[in-house]
C-alpha cells in the first residue's frame, strides 16, 4: 500500500513533462537555408505553444582569404579576395525535451548545422 501512492505520484509526475530551457544554435554558410530552418523551427515551436525567443542573429563572421592571383611573382600585384561568411542564429525555448526532438527532426536543410543545448534542471 505504501508503494502505491508512490507509484501514482511517479505516474503523475511523468505525465506533466518537465520543461527545460533549450537553446538551439544554428550555423550555416548559407543565409537563405538558415533563415528557412529558423522560420520552420519557430513556426513549429509556436504550433506547440512553446515559449520561444528569437531568432537572435549573431554577427556574421567573415573569413577572408586574400591571395595573389598570379602563380608566379611576375606581374602586377593583383589579389583575389575570397571570403566565407558564417551566419549564426540562436533560438531559445522552454519545452520538454521530446517535443524539441520532434521539432528539430522535421526540417533539415543541407548545410545548416543545428545544435541543441538542454539545460539540466
Amino acid at each position, binding site marked *: 500500500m505504501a508503494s502505491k501512492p508512490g507509484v501514482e505520484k511517479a505516474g503523475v509526475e511523468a505525465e506533466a513533462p518537465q520543461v527545460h530551457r533549450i*537553446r538551439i544554435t544554428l550555423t550555416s554558410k548559407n543565409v537563405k537555408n538558415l533563415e528557412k530552418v529558423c522560420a520552420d523551427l519557430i513556426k513549429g515551436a*509556436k504550433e506547440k505553444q512553446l515559449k520561444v525567443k528569437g531568432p*537572435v542573429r549573431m554577427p556574421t563572421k567573415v573569413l577572408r582569404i586574400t591571395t595573389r592571383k598570379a602563380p608566379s611573382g611576375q606581374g602586377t600585384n593583383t589579389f583575389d579576395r575570397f571570403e566565407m561568411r558564417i551566419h549564426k542564429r540562436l533560438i531559445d525555448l522552454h519545452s520538454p525535451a521530446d517535443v524539441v526532438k*520532434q521539432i528539430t*527532426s522535421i526540417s533539415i536543410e543541407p548545410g545548416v548545422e543545428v545544435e*541543441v543545448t538542454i539545460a539540466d534542471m
Partner: protein
Amino acid sequence: MGKKKAFIDKKKAVTYNLVYRDPTDDPEDEDGGQGTLAPIGGHRGGAHPIPDDYPEYYDDEGSVYDSEYSLAMSRSAAAHHDSSYSLSEERRRELLALGFPDDGYDYLKHLRDLGRGRAPAGKAGGVATIPEDQELDGFDDDEDGADGGGDGEWQEGSDSEEDFTIYDQEPAQNPNAGAAAAAAAAAAAAQRSKLDAAALAAAAAAAAADGAGPSTSAGGGGGGGRAAASAAAGPGPGSARAAARSAAARSIATTARTQGSAVGPSVYVPAVRLVPPKADVKVVDARRLVVRPTGHDEAAAAAALTEVTALARQTELHGKRGKLYQDMDEVEKSMAAMENGNDPNRKEVVEGDEWADWLDEFVAGGGDDGDGAAAAVGGGRAEAGGAEDENDEDGGDEEEGGGTSEEPEEYEEEDEWRARHRRRQQQEGGTAAGGTAAAPPSQAGPAAAAGGVGGVGAASVASSYWRRPERRDRREGFEALDAQFERLAVEYDDDEIGALDDGRYDDDDGEGDDDDEEEEGGAAAAAAAAAARRKAAAGACEISDFADVLDEFLSEHRATESLEAEGLKQLQVSDDVALLASRPDPEALAATRARLQRQVEAAAAAAAAAGAAGAGDDEPPAAMRTIVVQEAERWDCESVLSLTSNLENHPGKIVEPQRRTGGRGGGLIRLSAKTGMPVTRGSVRDGGGGGGAVLAAGGTIPEEGEQEGEEGEEEGGEDSESEEGGSVLDPAMLSRRKGETAEERKARKAAVKEARRNQRTAKKEMKNMFRQQATRAQKQSAGRSQAAGSTYVIP
C-alpha cells in the same frame, strides 16, 4: 551593471548535435524524421565559452565530427546483431591495418583472396581474419592441386569442407608408415591441418601401390610445393607430415582463409604426375553452324574460324535426321541465293522482292512450309536456349521489315544487322531461326509469293509509314493496329465528317438553314448548313455564349480589388500554415469583424444600386467567402534589431554614462565650455573628426553673440566676409576652366587669396569669441568646482 543570468548554464547543460539519419537505418524509431539528436561527448560541458561570446567555431566543429564518427560506429555496430557482422577486436584491427576507415562496417566481407573464386553462398564469405601470429608466418595451410586428376574420391565438392595446405619442403619420411597414419588421420575429416594429410595420404597410398618410386612419393608429397624439391626428396606423406608441419614446414598457399571455397589454387603448383584430362570429345553437328560467307574479308573469315569452338552444343544426329537434311538443304539454297544477290554490291536494290515475298510468306505462315518453319523455329529455339528467343524474334521481325518497306539506304543497315544476327547465332550454336526462316520461302518461292504479298498488303500500307529502325521489334503488334487503323480510316472517309449532333450548334444551323432557304434554293441551303456546321466544328462560336463567364470574372476582379484597396491580400493555399501559426488575437478579430461589417454594408449599397440598374449578375460581396488574414507576427526587441544587416548594423549596448572621475554634483548633463552643447561620450570622441560639424553648429552662436555684441559696425563687413568666407569652397572658384587667359588666371588666384584671407580673419574672430564666452562662463560658474564642467548660460 553585470551580465544577467545566462539563459543556459553551459556547465550544467547537455548539448546535442543534429545528425542526418538515414530513414532506412533505424526503422524502430518512431518520429520518422530525417534527423536525430546525437549527443556530443561531454567535452562541451564547461570547456567552451558560451555562444553569446562568439566561441571558436572551428574547434567545436572538429571535435563534433570526431564524436559523430565514434557514435556512428558504435551505433552501426550495435545495429547488426548478426554474429558475422560483429566487429571483433581482431577484425577491427585488421581493417585498420588494411587502411579501411574505422566506422564499424566490416569491409572485409567484400574482399576475397586471389584465385579463390567467390565465397560459397552459405558462408559469411569474405576474408577471414588472420590471427596476428599467423600473419607473419606466411601462409600456413597447403593445398593439393596435383592429386585431383587421378583420384575419384577427391572431388571439388570436398573443398568446401576441407582445407588444404601446400608445404614447402617435406622432411624425409617413410611413405608406408605415413600412409597408415594418414589413413587414420583421414578418419578425422574435419580437422584443418590434418585432412590435407589424409587426402595426400590416400593419394600417396595409391601411388605407393603403383610402385612408382620417386614420382609417387613426390606425388604423395603432393601438394608439395617445389617440383624440384619434391621430386628429389621424395618424402612420405601422412601424419608424419602433420608432425613435420609443426616442426619445419613452411607453406605457400592455403585455403584456410576462405574456408576452402577454392576453385583453384592461388599459387601455381606444377603437377608432379601428369594425368591426362578426361576425354573431351563432343560430337557437333557442324551443319547447323553457319560459317560466314567467304566474300567477307580475311579478318572476318579468321574470326569465323574461331567461332566453331569446342563449346559448341552437341546435337543429336540420329533423331531428326531426315528433318535435318531437309532443313539444311533449304538453308544451303537460301544462303546461296542470298550470297549471290547480297554480297558484292550492297547498293543494289536487289532481291527486295524476293525478300519481301518469302518474308511475308514466313510471317503469314502459309501452308506446310510455314508450319514447318514455325516448328523448326520452335525446335531451334528450344535448342538454343532462352537468350536466343529474342534474337529470333528480332530476326523474324527484322526480315519482315526488310520485306515490307524497301528503301535502298536501309539495306546496309539490314545486312549489317543480319550479319550480326548470324554471328550471334553462331555463337549460340544454332541458326534455327535464321536458317529455317530462310528455308521455307525459298522453297515456296513464287507460288506463295502472290498470296503472301496480298495477305500482308492491307497492313503494310500503314506499315510503310513506319520508320524502320525504331519499330522493328514491335512489328507484329503494330500490324494488327495498322489493320484496325485502316478500317477506321475508311469509316472517316466521307466529307460529312464534321457533322455534330450537339445542341449547342443547332440554333446556328437552324438559323443558317432558315436564312439560306429563304434566299436561295434547297441545295445551296444544304451546302450552307454544312458549311456552318463545319465552322462550328472548327471552333467558331459567338462571344455571347460566354457571357456568364465574363460576368463571373468581373465580379471576382471587383472583389480582389476591394480587398487590395484595404491593404490585405487574399488567402492563398500556402498561407494555411500561416493561419495556423498566428493565433487569432482580439484586435485582429475585431478589425476583421469591422471590415466584414463594412463589406456587408458596401455590398448592400452596391446591391441596391445594381438592382436598380438591373444587372443581376453581380454576386453580393457579402456572399464572398474570401478570408483575409493579417499576418501578425510577434517580434521581440532582439529579433527586430537583428533584422538589419550585419554589414551596417554593429549593435552596441547602450550603457549609462559613467563618470570617470566619480560623481560630484552638477547633474548628469554637462555643457562643454567650447561649444555650449551637452557633453556625451560621442561628442568627445568625434571632437577631432567632427570639427567641421562643430564649427557649423557653433556657427550660430557666434552670430548670435555678434549680433548681441557688435551690431552695427561690422555687420556689413561681416556679411561680406561671410559671403566670401563661403567662397573658398566654391567649386566655381576652385576649378580651373580649360581655356584660361592670363587675366582670368590672375583674377581667379586673386579671388582665392582674398577668400582665404577672409576665412582666416573669420576664424580668428570666432576663436576669440569662444575664449570670451568661456571666460564669461567660468566667471559665472565661479562658485562651482571646475571638475563639474562649466555651464553656459544663455540669457
